[in-house]
């Protein structure tokens, strides 16, 4: 059974006449990880602020597990853990104090606070840091404390605004693993502008551009749109174009820098690459590279956001 944890409908936020977020609607089920993608200033953070009750929407509703954020903010906020753009840490408190405060503020019973703090420190790799002041932590560790305070009360929905910002590659790997793990029991919404990150941790992706959703769907859909029907081939003694076109399935051969791009009628199966390699060996074409011509996620992203501009 799937339970809907987040229901957003027609969410709009305007500053004067400037609509920063325009009629964004989506649903999220329990256990899913939703990636929120968009260039700077697209409205990612504004949407997240509205989701977590930090900003009142101009119109539209946000429901967390069926509880309306505007009508019952206290009950709805109890179900959310939020890491804003800047981790909200009291610099004069130690990590232990900060996390204990977060636990108590989110209604963790007094007797369970210590256990919750220990558990969350273990999950975010902060066990050694308990006695340090938040002020003296490096950016990466501050970010981890920020994540820790967001998940300490095991909320139904975890909202993370650029969680991997300021982390080193090893920490990024850990945090991504943590986010995937969180996705098991909670719903996670994370915003980022790092595209491969979305591909690694998210089940669903939404691309927001100038306040509007331009893409919303499963990650596989996005992945599929990256695949093309071309192979990029590098050969030292390339034959005439006609010889390549004679290969089974090849419909077009065009130069791409030092390489050749071969378009196939049907990319299904690996047979096409296999027959190409066989022909190359037989003809002594000096084949040294065969690679699928994958459009980068950036290209897809640019395509989606620029399509919008043309339409607008």
């Amino acid at each position, binding site marked *: 059974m799937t339970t809907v944890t987040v229901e957003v409908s027609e969410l709009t*936020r305007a*500053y004067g006449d400037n609509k920063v977020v325009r009629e964004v609607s989506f649903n999220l089920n329990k256990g899913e990880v939703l990636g929120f993608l968009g260039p700077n200033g697209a409205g990612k953070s*504004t949407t997240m*602020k509205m989701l*977590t*009750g*930090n*900003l*009142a929407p101009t119109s539209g509703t946000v429901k967390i597990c069926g509880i309306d954020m505007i009508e019952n*903010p*206290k*009950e709805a*906020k*109890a179900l*959310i853990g*939020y890491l*804003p*753009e*800047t981790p*909200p*840490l*009291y*610099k*004069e*408190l130690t990590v232990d*104090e900060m996390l204990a*405060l*977060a636990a*108590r*503020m*989110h*209604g963790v019973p007094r007797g369970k606070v210590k256990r919750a703090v220990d558990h969350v420190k273990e999950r975010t790799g902060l066990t050694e840091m308990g006695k340090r002041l938040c002020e003296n932590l490096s950016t990466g560790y501050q970010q981890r404390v920020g994540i820790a*305070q967001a998940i300490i009360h095991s909320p139904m929905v975890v909202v993370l605004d650029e969680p991997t910002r300021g982390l080193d590659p090893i920490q990024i790997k850990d945090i991504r693993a943590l986010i995937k793990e969180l996705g098991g029991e909670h719903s996670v919404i994370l915003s980022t502008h790092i595209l491969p990150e979305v591909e690694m941790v998210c089940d669903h992706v939404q691309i927001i551009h100038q306040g509007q959703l331009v893409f919303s769907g499963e990650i596989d859909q996005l992945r599929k749109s990256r695949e093309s029907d071309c192979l990029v081939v590098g050969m030292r003694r390339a034959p005439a174009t006609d010889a390549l076109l004679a290969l089974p399935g090849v419909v077009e051969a065009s130069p791409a820098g030092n390489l050749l791009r071969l378009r196939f009628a049907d990319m299904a199966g690996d047979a096409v690459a296999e027959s190409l390699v066989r022909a190359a060996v037989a003809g002594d074409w000096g084949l040294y590279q065969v690679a699928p011509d994958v459009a980068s996620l950036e290209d897809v992203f640019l395509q989606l956001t620029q399509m919008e501009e043309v339409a607008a």
Partner: protein
Amino acid sequence: MKMILTIAGKELRSLFASPMAWVILAMLQLLLGLFFANGIDRYFEAMQGAMPPEQRMGFTAFVVPQVFGVAVLVLLTAVPLLTMRLIAEERKSQTLVFLFSAPVSLFEIVVGKFVGLMTFISVVVLLLMAMTLSMHVATDIDTAHVLTNALGMWLMAAAFSALGIFMSSLTQQPIIAAIISFIALLGLIIIDSFAADPESPLNYLSLMRHFEPLSSGMLNTADIAYFILFTATFLVLTVRRLDADRLRG
């Protein structure tokens, strides 16, 4: 209620994590101790002279209002320094989000901060009370008179704090909040000296006019109501101001 205490506890912890609270406590104690000792000296000087018996007054009436009067003036500068960071600094370092995202109401946030600060100020008031009551070893002290003075000082401090918190919610810069609070409070204390007419409504606005009866030992409901309303008004204004943050962004 639990949340109010949690927030109050956090504020107290932050207060004592910085040297500010300790310095204010120590300076206050030193200054008021000196004043108190000086007051005792002057009492003996005045009473040793050839003073007609009907003009003589008790030790409590002579010394205690003076000491508490000075204490209030010291608080006039100390409280803005304590309230300035309460909201302005949280806004500056973007920790306000932490409170806004937690399942607590704005009212609980503001009252929690107020309660935390007032706990600290209560310590100051209690220390001063203990100091004056210590004269019990040498003479008869009018305990009730000391209590009305302490209550007056506490109510004045509550009014200062509420106004200070409100000013702190208006800006991102703690220093600006402190300066504005100080000027506003000073204005409210001396406003009655601008009134030519003794019946002028300006008199009623003056904080000092409501402190003086308490300081002379008179417990008046109107004065207490004034302080409570003053404090409540500024706390409610602070809640409104924070709500505007959420609405306007």
